[in-house]
């Protein structure tokens, strides 16, 4: 459970916001890799450790991936239409370019020329249509390709795929970022484990979550430098940390701050920090109850000491945030003033709102991810200094997701896709959002959101996006105090590692060994 709840980004297709209508970019879609040591060199085997659980192994590219190790294998063997990137946050992959009709509903994706399956067959629109429909028809399809019915995914000739959305959606290409893996048309379910992909690496072997991949010499996206990638699945970050410290692997993917602290002291190891990786906001129920008054919610936001949270909860591996979800968005509103601790103002707001300071309020949390429960405890301490009594209740994960999530009045949550303000707005804050964690319903927000995704002119959408963020900063149900870095540890010889947050970390096609 713990791992799969993190896979929200797969669930949501990991959208982002900033793609321009008619964007037609070129190139292999590689994110700006980290470069430190000389010119890229061909050859070598990269040994990667990734988290995963033996009981949760799945080989279906369109299944519920709860193992980071499985997702890593899949995304190196198969290609998605688009991939996460820096600026804009969506780059071409199997789709070389895309454009929308004037209504922002019909989107045409052109398949990359020269794209071949590992068995040599060309990739056609029919393969893509079949794969996207298969994805859409899975049990979680509606949340992975929201607003696109299976029937509205069609081929136009051999080289173009047409997606028609139920409503105008300027972000549609972002929906295809993380789970639109393309397989050959009519691949039977019992042959998924050996199905040829189109990705930068071919599968050599896979067994119980561990795998070896070898270079795809004919990859359409550019030259792949590594001879092979060996992936070892780790049940715990601790074991993975030991493996990199002992030199048994070259890259410990998403290994976390504990390993990073040890690695900082070693010359032969390098810590890769990927900013804006994980949001761990506190949810305050906006619909009813003690936090329904926006002044109370603002007071709580003024009570938290954000620097202390980042320092103590994240061991310093993170950044302070400003109560706006989607901090990695290229169009994140950095000019909205940073909220800082102000106990006097908080007290004033609480008095105005007649907030009952005599009561004790439960803050419910889990130990699903490192630091979450600690963030709740530290926040409760900060609140106590303002006279608000908060009692932290740790719930077992299963109980939390059943009983507290989306229902509680004050609880912690976490999100792994943070490079799109609009994606998170659509999921969490629009009045009828499927996962409106705080039961936030604000007509002005909904209106701004709709203009931000559906207005005909780019300038109008940009202005609306700023408004969306202002409203969030002012009165949403979230207290977002900071953002945790994603942390990988690598040996000094590994070069060209991805620095993107979230699942951007699996893009190892440009990685090489010194």
């Amino acid at each position: 459970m713990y791992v799969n709840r993190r896979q929200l980004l797969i669930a949501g297709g990991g959208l982002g916001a900033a793609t321009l209508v008619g964007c037609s970019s070129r190139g292999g879609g590689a994110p700006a890799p980290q470069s430190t040591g000389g010119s890229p060199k061909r050859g070598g085997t990269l040994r990667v450790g990734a988290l995963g659980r033996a009981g949760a192994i799945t080989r279906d590219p369109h299944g519920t991936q709860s193992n980071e190790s499985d997702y890593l294998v899949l995304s190196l063997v198969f290609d998605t239409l688009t991939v996460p990137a820096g600026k804009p946050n969506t780059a071409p992959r199997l789709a070389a370019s895309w454009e929308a009709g004037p209504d922002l509903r019909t989107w045409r994706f052109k398949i990359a020329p020269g794209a071949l399956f590992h068995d040599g067959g060309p990739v056609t629109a029919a393969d893509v249509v079949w794969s996207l429909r298969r994805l859409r028809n899975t049990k979680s399809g509606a949340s992975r390709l929201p607003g696109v019915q299976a029937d509205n995914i069609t081929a136009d000739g051999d080289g173009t795929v047409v997606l028609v959305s139920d409503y105008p959606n300027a972000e549609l290409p972002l929906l295809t970022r993380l789970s639109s893996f393309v397989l050959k048309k009519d691949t039977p379910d019992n042959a998924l484990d050996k199905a040829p992909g189109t990705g930068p690496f071919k599968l050599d072997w896979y067994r119980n979550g561990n795998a070896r991949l070898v270079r795809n010499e004919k990859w359409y996206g550019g030259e792949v430098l590594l001879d092979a990638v060996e992936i070892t699945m780790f049940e715990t970050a601790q074991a993975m940390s030991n493996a990199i410290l002992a030199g048994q692997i070259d890259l410990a993917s998403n290994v976390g701050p504990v390993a990073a602290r040890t690695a900082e002291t070693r010359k032969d190891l390098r810590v890769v920090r990927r900013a804006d990786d994980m949001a761990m906001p506190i949810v305050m129920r906006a619909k009813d109850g003690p936090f329904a008054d926006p002044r109370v919610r603002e007071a709580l936001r003024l009570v938290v000491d954000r620097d202390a949270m980042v320092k103590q909860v994240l061991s310093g591996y993170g950044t302070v945030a400003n109560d706006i979800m989607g901090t990695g968005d290229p169009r994140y509103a950095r000019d909205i003033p940073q909220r800082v601790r102000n106990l006097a103002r908080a007290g004033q707001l609480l008095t105005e709102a007649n907030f009952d300071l005599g009561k004790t309020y439960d803050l419910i949390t889990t130990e699903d991810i490192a630091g979450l429960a600690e963030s709740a405890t530290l926040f409760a301490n900060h609140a106590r200094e303002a006279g608000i009594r908060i009692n932290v209740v740790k719930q077992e994960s299963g109980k939390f997701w059943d009983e507290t999530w989306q229902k509680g009045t004050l609880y912690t949550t976490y999100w792994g896709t943070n490079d799109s303000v609009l994606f998170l707005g659509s999921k969490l804050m629009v009045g009828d959002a499927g996962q409106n964690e705080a039961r936030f319903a604000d007509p002005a927000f909904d209106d701004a959101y709709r203009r931000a995704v559906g207005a005909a002119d780019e300038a109008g959408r940009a202005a609306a996006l700023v408004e969306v963020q202002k409203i969030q900063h002012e009165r949403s149900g979230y207290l977002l105090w900071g953002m945790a870095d994603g942390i990988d540890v690598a040996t000094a010889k590994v070069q060209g590692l991805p620095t993107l947050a979230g699942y951007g970390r699996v893009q190892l096609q440009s990685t090489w060994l010194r």
Partner: protein
Amino acid sequence: MAALTPGAAAAGSTDPATASPPGPARAHSAHRAGRAALRAGAVLLRRTLVLAALLAVVFTAVEILPGDAATATADRGDSAAAIAARREHLGLDRPLWERFTDWMTALPTGDLGTSARGEKVADLLRDPFPNTLALAGAAFVLTVAASLALGCLAAARPGRRTDRVIGHTATTAFAIPDFVLATGLVLVLSLWTGWLPAVTVADASGKPAEWTMMIMPVLALAIPQTGWNTRIVRAALTDQADAPHVEAARLDGLSTTRVLLRHALPGALPVIATGIATSTGMLLGGAVVVETLFNHPGMGTVLAGAVAGRDTTLIAGSVALAGAAITLVLLAADLVRAKTAGAGR
């Protein structure tokens, strides 16, 4: 994780009745063999029933935990309807006893059911189970050898310094929690000295890539159990030292070693066998922790993930296999006791 430990304890409760000596020596030997077979059958039946009851407990326990496999394998964005459909697909909407009966009736055919993610449980356990057996088996052999050696050594020098050192060390070894011991081993034998690989990396065959990867997990399992069994061996030998035939042997002027090995040890074997057999449960239970710490590709890691995922069939499949292994060892212990106790008469 929790599922295996009570299982081990339940299956490990050896029945004193089975230790009763065989029938009178003057009885006809064929008759005696028949009765022995009958009794062995009864023991087997009883152990099988214990295992079945244990599996029923496992099913119930997973049911009581909050959440189920449908929510555990759902994406966070899934609607309530999608989760309900998933629940139906997994058969979780059916009554518990019905699911349990279906699963149990398929069990004798070797069908362990399907996991919450639609994989065959037998496939999921095919590689991990032998890996765990290899690990626990090696730890078992080491435990037996070391605790017999240390126990005898201590008993040969009663009250002397060797005896005291062994006694204290054994108690300490047993008291150290698995994860503390494992972490200490990694620090000393791998990160500081670089002598051994810190974790297990499996190759294309699904087995540890190098045999040296087995050393630390085996030590982590065997050290606490050796501590426990050394004390048992020592105590059993002390009891035997007062037995008339041992006393007689000593008075005959036989050497200490000879008295110990030829006269005291055979009499102590039933108690020692029981102690060591009980350790089997602890070894397999401890494997859950130790495998996770060392990334050993065994059943412990499967089980830990399965409990988190509320994957009832996968948990039950693991427990059934582990339970069967423990049951076999307990049966073997029963045989040893029956045989040695009989020979003593």
